[in-house]
């Protein structure tokens, strides 16, 4: 019996309120991206394809560029670590923190950290770890999970946030005015910054030629968090390298516009390494942890284009399935189209657990159309469906296709079936004991069968 897909089942369970928050927020993001990108670029495709080719080149020579980046970073006084798994990365970060006697830190938004669940790990190990990005801070207060790459709380509305602030004692009373919420969070967080002994960040780009690292934020939280602390640790996926600083002109022009419909994010931070002699503040110690965590396996697969991703979330915003189901439906850090490709791949041997994600798409191609690095996401989803089938991963909702193939390769059988399909017009097919057919027809009226009529007309007509 053909069952239902998990993501479809999940989509039925979410409240209308949550679904509207997600779809309204996502649609607004799509609209803003379009306006800003197309206002500034007559043909953004040229830029998208250039960005894709730079990323492909880098990935093709990733070993060389990583070595180059390491050398450049070291020459700036940065300590560089390589972590092959998420556990390695967590242990590396923990031992750096312990070496500096850190018991409290602030962390700016990092998908890499989300991917390996760094926060709970550090807290378990006795380190107070405060999210300083407003959205992530609210996620932390609610013990929730981010549901979008750049808008982690896209699934929440301001009334829920106001309630959380009241419950957690961050605000004395209920107030759901967005500006008031932000001011209250700011007042609360400000004090915490000065107690922290280290700052953890991700990185949007690392330039291999100079070792300069770039962070794009809208709240200035990573910059603020770094100013008073002696230690900065950056957790960076190995695919974040770009060859040259000047390539940033391509990527920065795409990142803000694609992610939030901004020409640039409010803060674009260039990090040159630890504090130099003539700088008044900033961390004296800086560590960069380059994390693989399955990425070299992805690089070796036939879905390597997904490593071009610059985590803008444009594919999530535009995806009609994401809008209906929310990011949480994808049971992993990365939801939406990018997640449906990336997560099952990053899961390695545990691919079967998430092999249903690539099926959660009508293959409409909107994700590819908006992707700043032109990732052919529908093609990758199809390759993963093929992979799941070849590896005999059980799928509750697979419609067996071999009968179809037999019919579609036997012309006379096919013609007979077409003519016979007319019988449907006289049978109560709604009661046929085929669950998916019943479900389909429960919502839709099927047109009348005209099986074989065109063939008959074509054969018997007089040519005009």
């Amino acid at each position, binding site marked *: 019996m053909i069952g239902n897909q998990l993501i*479809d089942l999940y989509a039925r369970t979410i409240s209308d309120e949550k679904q509207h928050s997600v779809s309204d927020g996502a649609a607004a993001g799509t609209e803003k991206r379009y306006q800003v990108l197309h206002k500034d670029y007559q043909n953004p495709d040229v830029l998208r394809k250039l960005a894709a080719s730079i990323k492909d080149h880098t990935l093709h020579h990733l070993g060389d560029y990583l070595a180059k980046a390491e050398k450049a970073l070291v020459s700036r006084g940065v300590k560089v670590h390589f972590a092959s798994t998420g556990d390695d990365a967590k242990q590396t970060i923990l031992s750096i923190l312990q070496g500096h006697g850190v018991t409290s830190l602030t962390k700016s938004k990092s998908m890499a950290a989300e991917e390996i669940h760094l926060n709970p790990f550090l807290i378990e190990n006795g380190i107070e770890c405060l999210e300083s990005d407003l959205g992530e801070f609210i996620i932390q207060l609610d013990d929730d999970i981010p549901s979008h790459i750049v808008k982690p709380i896209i699934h929440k509305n301001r009334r829920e946030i106001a309630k959380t602030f009241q419950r957690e004692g961050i605000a004395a009373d209920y107030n759901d005015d967005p500006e008031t919420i932000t001011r209250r969070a700011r007042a609360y967080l400000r004090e915490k910054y000065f107690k922290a002994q280290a700052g953890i960040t991700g990185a949007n780009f690392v330039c291999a030629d100079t070792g300069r690292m770039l962070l794009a934020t809208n709240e200035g939280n990573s910059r603020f968090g770094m100013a008073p602390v002696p230690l900065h640790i950056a957790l960076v996926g190995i695919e974040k390298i770009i060859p040259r600083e000047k390539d940033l002109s391509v990527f920065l022009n795409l990142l803000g516009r694609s992610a939030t419909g901004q020409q640039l994010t409010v803060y674009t931070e260039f990090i040159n390494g630890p504090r130099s002699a003539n700088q008044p503040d900033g961390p004296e110690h800086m560590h960069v942890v380059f994390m693989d965590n399955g990425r070299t396996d992805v690089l070796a697969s036939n879905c390597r284009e997904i490593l071009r991703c610059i985590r803008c979330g444009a594919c999530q915003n535009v995806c009609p399935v994401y809008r209906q189901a929310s990011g949480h439906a994808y049971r992993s850090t990365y939801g939406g189209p990018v997640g449906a490709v990336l997560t099952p791949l990053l899961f390695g041997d545990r691919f079967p657990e998430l092999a249903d994600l690539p099926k*959660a798409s009508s293959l409409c191609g909107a994700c590819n159309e908006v992707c700043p690095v032109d990732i052919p996401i529908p093609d990758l989803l199809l390759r993963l469906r093929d992979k799941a089938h070849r590896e005999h991963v059980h799928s509750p909702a697979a419609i067996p296709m071999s009968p179809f193939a037999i019919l*579609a390769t036997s012309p006379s059988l096919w013609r007979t079936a077409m003519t016979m399909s007319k019988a449907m017009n006289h049978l109560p097919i709604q009661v046929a004991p085929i669950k998916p057919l019943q479900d*389909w027809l429960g*919502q839709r009226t*099927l047109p009348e069968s005209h099986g074989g009529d065109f063939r008959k007309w*074509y054969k018997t007509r007089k040519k005009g």
Partner: protein
Amino acid sequence: MTHPTARPLGKRVLLMGTCLCDAFYDDVARATVEVLEHLGYSVDYPEDQTCCGQPAFNSGEWSASRKVAKHAAEVFAGDLPVIVPSGSCAAMNRHGNLLQHEENPDPAITSLANRTWEVIDFIFNGIGIKSWPGRFEKPTRIAFHRSCHSRGTHTGEAVRTLLASIENAEVIPFGQQEQCCGFGGTFSVTFPHISGQMGTLKLDHILDTNPDMLCGIDMSCLMHLSGLAINQGRPIPHKHTIQILRDTLLS
């Protein structure tokens, strides 16, 4: 995935009628023949044709879909243009088929890819007809759903230009036009809830603009949308673009 670059030289074409037209929408295949013949083309319909193989391809059963694609490539062998009244089947021939054969390219499959045209793209860019001498009897507001599988092709522009050139026709914009209707073939069966929600949203946007008819280039999208609309008590007249070209010409 754009249209074939070479202009068709001769005046003969092959029609890939699509399985949906074979089963339900005979008049769409018929309109395709009538319009192409009106334009001076002779249209052959190879009778051993079945389906392009997309249902199995999208399901990830590439061993099955390659067999169907191979059959199609044999049925449509030769060097004549293959015209299909569906953006989705055109995309399967032109792109999907190459994807599922990327490890073992097959010359017959590649040849089919290079010769396949979505019919409106063929009329507009292949033959080069940039306006349509048709007429609606009274002012007609048309909502055009572009169909996702025509993304990145010239079909959308071709349809809009040809429809807009018809006397008394107005192509009206509606909200979130870039969004999918939610059909997606087997997707609508295995993701019935999400598919239905997507289709309902699409209908909301279309019906908000109070069109006289819905038009498309894929009967699959139109079957899904009109089927939902009937069950929701808000049926909407719908036609394939090629039917509009024929009907306005004859009237």
